[in-house]
């Protein structure tokens, strides 16, 4: 062990994911304000007597002291700045949207220890909004994904043609093309989203929440489909949590197991309930 300089450093960050390691340890992936993405070992946090196990759960904004290890850094101390977890898990839609935010941030942050301040601020903003329920969770997720792509240099063109910059508006939308395309640049297989949906994407990207919240379910679904397709095209792989995001309307029953309930009880008994 000698000869390896152990340097301590301190940073604040959001815990993106945790993985079990050995008997009682965890590897935590943190997106920090100054250092970028860091993977670090948190020793003994799965024991019930751990002093900082509860602080190092996903969705936690923490102040960390770490020391540089040989492969992974090691968490030395952790203090909560704000824990978004308890507020987010209470609402299943916010939880699934929040998990997709964290997974996207993990993928977009790329290499470890490359500072990603703008992405960090976007993650904090999205989690705060989900925890405080300021906007519908599905819209918060799509706004985050669009802005995170924009920070990564993949901002979709929403008015002028993505290829020749011919001033818009145009009707066609191409995921490989990078957004809205003009009739002459249009590759085969381009989508034709409704102009209202494109307006919603623009509102989400620029933060026009009044316009975004006034949108209808069909446009929201179309918009989130386009955002997911763009993101997964750029990442060159699919995001596991994106498929599990619950985009049902508030107050509606949970989306699973209900067909069976209908079959077992008979539709008549459930007729009085919202479906």
């Amino acid at each position: 062990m000698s000869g390896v300089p152990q340097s301590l450093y301190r940073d604040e960050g959001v815990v993106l994911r945790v993985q079990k390691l050995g008997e009682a340890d965890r590897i935590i992936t943190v997106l920090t304000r100054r250092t970028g993405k860091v993977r670090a070992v948190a020793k003994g946090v799965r024991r019930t007597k751990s002093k900082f196990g509860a602080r190092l759960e996903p969705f936690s904004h923490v102040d960390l002291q770490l020391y540089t290890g040989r492969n992974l850094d090691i968490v030395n101390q952790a203090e909560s700045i704000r824990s978004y977890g308890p507020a987010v898990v209470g609402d299943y839609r916010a939880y699934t949207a929040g998990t997709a935010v964290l997974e996207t941030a993990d993928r977009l942050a790329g290499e470890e220890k490359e500072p990603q301040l703008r992405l960090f601020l976007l993650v904090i903003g999205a989690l705060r909004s989900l925890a405080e329920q300021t906007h519908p969770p599905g819209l918060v997720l799509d706004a985050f994904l669009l802005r995170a792509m924009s920070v990564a240099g993949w901002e979709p063109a929403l008015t002028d043609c993505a290829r020749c910059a011919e001033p818009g508006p145009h009707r066609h939308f191409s995921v490989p093309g990078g957004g809205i395309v003009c009739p002459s640049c249009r590759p085969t297989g381009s989508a034709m989203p409704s102009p209202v949906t494109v307006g919603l994407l623009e509102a989400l990207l620029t933060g026009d929440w009044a316009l975004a919240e006034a949108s209808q379910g069909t446009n929201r679904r179309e918009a989130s489909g386009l955002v997911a397709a763009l993101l997964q095209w750029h990442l060159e792989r699919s995001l596991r949590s994106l498929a599990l995001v619950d985009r049902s309307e508030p107050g509606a029953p949970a989306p699973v197991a209900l067909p069976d309930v209908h079959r077992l009880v008979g539709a008549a008994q459930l007729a009085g309930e919202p479906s």
Partner: protein
Amino acid sequence: MYEGAVQDLIDELGRLPGVGPKSAQRIAFHLLAADAADVGRLTAALQRVQAEVRFCVTCYNVAEGEQCRICRDPRRSLDVLCVVEEPKDVVAIERTREFKGRYHVLGGAISPIEGIGPDDLRVKELMTRLMDGTVTELIIATDPNLEGEATAAYLARLIAPMGVAVSRLASGLPVGGDLEYADEVTLGRAFEGRRRITA
């Protein structure tokens, strides 16, 4: 690299959780040097587990035969159901000797980042068990971490319209610990779940 059979044994042992290449080698050589009777018992135990142990058809706990020991026990109450993530959790709760009802093992917790959604757990089977109205109280005993809490919130929302009382295990301070060392999340929960002392 060793020859044929020895290397195969080391490779197989090395696939077990927590067993690295060095430990696999050590166990393999221990088995080579051990009595034939000892090795025979180990082989028989492995084969028996493979042949006889399966999941209980009612609660999905590990069982020998159709139903597990708890589901077969007529003294266990039918109206209280405790939902846990893994069969290991059943054993942990059984050790308390506090719970006299029956169990339902989900087989994990909702974790979108691992690609595990409600459809991958035994949620439908739980709903089917609740259908006939025998169960009046459901205790959700998923792990007190993020995935466990999200699973509990999800189940509570799903079950609320069915008229079954749903409760969640309390979280708070560990017995024998010091208050000053408790983290703020746990201490906050302990405050939230405080109870009146009846004199």
